[in-house]
């Protein structure tokens, strides 16, 4: 195995692990904001109890999300140094903006949400919950901006790096930096807002945020459906279930609609990626494959069962089912993305997405008829649905990232004037402008050896598997314990701070522990 493959595996593995947590915190953030608002307006303690319960789960996820998120930032430098040099000028500012605008906000106010309910006024507490929800969303925005820029770069130009060089007469002057006969280039910002609103940012961001809302909502549905089935915490479970069901339905439906336009957008800017999703080999009328197994070598689909013209319809909303869709045959073998992974993950995402709409639709229907308590099969489906939703979420990410290969920075696509085909060379292939993009194989760190890459991959695998096990264990425990009543406000407490003497603390805690308290 070479460093490129090892670094790709490590990046894929660490980001998939990381990507379990941010969607959960973004989704739960919306739910926390909703619950705390209801609590603030109605002074109904049950909302505060619910908010406290989900807050504890939020914090657990946040802690692992932060810890595994630093890994992502470091990896750009450790494993992808050449890439970092190429894109730092444009990509770095999004990352720095994320730190300043998102992380500080989220981690700061989370302290108050987690530890400060008794220390601050109710209004400020509500405000803090909003800030946490906003902070987690902000970080999604900046990361998606950075990611979208790699997929559909805009607002920049590629320039030769200039360095001061000493001439033969002893004076210095700026000249292109040449190392071993190769002129060094990098991307530089021209227009910040073009960079931020590059052609796919809005589509990708809305899809990701809807996905996060769905994960959060289905997570709440899973836990509360479990309580309903087990006849525990009934009032809490009903409240959480009803709210989350509405959010889950809106998110699922939104994902479907937005997914459709996003597929069209992908075709416009990365036609080879969409062709890989659909295993569409030959340019021409696009069939929509339902069942099959694509074979990149033979350039055909085995066991093919397709809707004739279905893909043409999907791409252009074309009711003649016949418009030409550019296929993989327009691309040289070395410029094509791998097919099987995008093909399968794309199907997993779309398939589970459809299932989510059906499930939440049924849920709303039976909830409206007030018979959902009797539909135990449906409640059990909700208990397990979170698994599928998470798989769908990950699959979407995989499809987008593997479909981008072999590029880390995707060069722009040039269409013919009528927009029906790509501008191809005399050999019939589309020729990417290599200077405008960066291949994955050229992106890695030259300083890193195979042994180092292997060591780190092995260590991360072990660490993350262990963390996942502990996470599930702690989560399971929290869910088994369930929501706990709020602590009564201590009237003797002056401005929220008890100057309890050490001994008193000891005595109280020892007593609680002896009584089998929750500590």
């Amino acid at each position: 195995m070479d460093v490129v493959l090892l670094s790709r595996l490590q990046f894929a593995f660490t980001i998939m692990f990381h990507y379990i947590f941010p969607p959960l915190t973004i989704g739960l953030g919306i739910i926390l904001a909703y619950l705390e608002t209801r609590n603030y307006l109605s002074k109904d303690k049950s909302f505060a109890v619910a908010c406290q319960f989900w807050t504890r789960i939020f914090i657990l996820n946040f802690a692992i999300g932060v810890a595994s998120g630093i890994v992502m930032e470091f990896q750009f430098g450790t494993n992808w140094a050449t890439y970092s040099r190429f894109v730092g000028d444009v990509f770095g500012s999004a990352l720095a903006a994320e730190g300043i605008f998102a992380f500080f906000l989220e981690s700061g106010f989370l302290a108050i949400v987690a530890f400060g309910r008794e220390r601050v006024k109710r209004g400020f507490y509500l405000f803090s919950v909003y800030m946490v929800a906003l902070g987690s969303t902000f970080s999604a925005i900046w990361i998606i901006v950075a990611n979208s820029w790699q997929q559909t770069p805009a607002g920049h130009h590629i320039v030769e790096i200039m360095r001061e060089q000493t001439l033969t007469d002893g004076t210095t002057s700026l000249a292109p930096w040449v190392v071993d006969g190769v002129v060094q280039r990098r991307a530089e910002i021209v227009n910040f807002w073009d960079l931020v609103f590059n052609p796919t940012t809005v589509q990708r961001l809305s899809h990701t945020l809807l996905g996060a809302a769905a994960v959060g909502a289905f997570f709440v549905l899973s836990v509360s459906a479990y309580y309903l089935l087990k006849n525990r915490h009934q009032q809490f479970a009903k409240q959480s279930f009803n709210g989350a069901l509405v959010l889950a339905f809106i998110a699922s439906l939104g994902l479907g609609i937005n997914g459709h336009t996003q597929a069209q957008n992908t075709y416009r800017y990365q036609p080879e990626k969409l062709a890989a999703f659909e295993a569409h080999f030959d340019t021409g009328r696009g069939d929509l494959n339902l069942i099959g197994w694509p074979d990149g070598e033979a350039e055909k689909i085995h066991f093919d069962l397709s809707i004739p013209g279905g893909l043409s319809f999907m791409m252009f909303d074309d009711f003649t089912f016949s418009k030409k869709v550019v296929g993989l045959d327009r691309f040289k073998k070395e410029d094509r993305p791998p097919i099987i992974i995008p093909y399968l993950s794309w199907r997993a995402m779309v398939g589970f997405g459809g299932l989510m709409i059906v499930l939440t639709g049924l849920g709303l229907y039976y909830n409206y008829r007030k018979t959902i308590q009797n539909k135990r099969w449906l409640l059990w489906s909700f208990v397990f649905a979170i698994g599928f939703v998470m798989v769908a979420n990950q699959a979407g990410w995989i499809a987008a990232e593997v479909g981008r290969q072999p590029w880390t920075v995707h060069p722009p696509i040039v269409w013919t004037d009528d927009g029906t085909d790509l501008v191809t060379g005399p050999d019939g292939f589309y020729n990417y402008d290599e200077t405008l993009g960066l291949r994955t194989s050229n992106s890695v760190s030259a300083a890193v050896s195979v042994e180092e890459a292997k060591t780190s991959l092995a260590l991360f695998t072990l660490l993350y598997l262990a963390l996942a096990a502990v996470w599930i264990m702690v989560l399971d425990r929290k869910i088994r314990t369930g929501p706990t009543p709020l602590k009564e406000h201590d009237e003797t407490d002056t401005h929220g701070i008890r100057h309890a003497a050490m001994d008193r603390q000891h005595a109280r805690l020892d007593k609680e522990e002896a009584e089998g308290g929750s500590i």
Partner: protein
Amino acid sequence: MSTELLCIIWFILLNVLLIGYAILDGFDLGVGILHPFVAKTDVERRLVMNSIGPLWDGNEVWLVTFGGALFAMFPNAYASIFSAFYIPFVALLFALIFRAVSLEFRSKRSGKAWRTLWDILFFTGSTLAALLFGVAIGTLMQGLNISELGDYQGTMLDMLNGFSINVGLMTVALLAMHGSIYLYMKTEGELQDRLFHWMKGTYFAFLALFIVVTLWSTLFVPASIHHFSDYPILWLVPLLNFLAIANIYRAIQQKKPFYAFISSCFAIAVLVFLFSAALYPNLLPATNNPEYSITIFNGASSPLTQKIGLLIVAIGMPMVLSYTAIIYWTFRGKVQLGENSY
């Protein structure tokens, strides 16, 4: 604004971020280093952990932002340094992860073995992180063997030498002292009494290592003093540092932990400053060929990126500082255990 000026401003801003990180995460790393030694019972362990409970993740954001800013403003340096320190930085990530999750996981079960496991990981993670930061600083001061493109050409073992290890140990001692002063402010009673001795002990450990590192760098690491001959005014900085360090002890003796803490913050800031002054104008000095060194000028982003960055900082930093202040104010006073504590 000239291109050079922008580079210098960003070099200063990176220093501000690094100083912010070193001071803030410094005390919670220090708390982690001392954790197994100063706390005897489970209640005390929880008190110690909860003294940093609401603050540590906000503190760590300074590191994330520093990383992001280095990436954005000096991408060459970011790429070269991070790939050169591959294994040490992977170890650093492990240390930070273990620390973060042990805070979160420890309280979730009451079994003794469970809690001991996370106590060990909390201590190991904190100590290892402090050590690695110090080693990286010591190594950078001496420079690395890099290619024309800035890729490191040595092995990991080349980085480990007497000087860098000493800087690493000094960092551990410094943060332990810094953390002990913080803990002294946050605790009461018997635990606080015990911390008094730990403050003094870690102070002397730091002082001894500080003297060793100072002598070593002045005598054998030419980079560390090469600016002092050009700008004699710079000698004021180490002088102030000696005063600050002396004042830490005075304040400890007088049991005025807040003054000691301020002095210790000042000492940390000065040490970071001295490190940057030693490097300037390099970010990564090349030992094999000075022309290959990555400086704040040849490693910088385009002026437009640097200006956009300044705008982001101008908007973001006042907000960050204001809610950091709110949060530290909200959690002022002695640490106490409650419903939501770890």
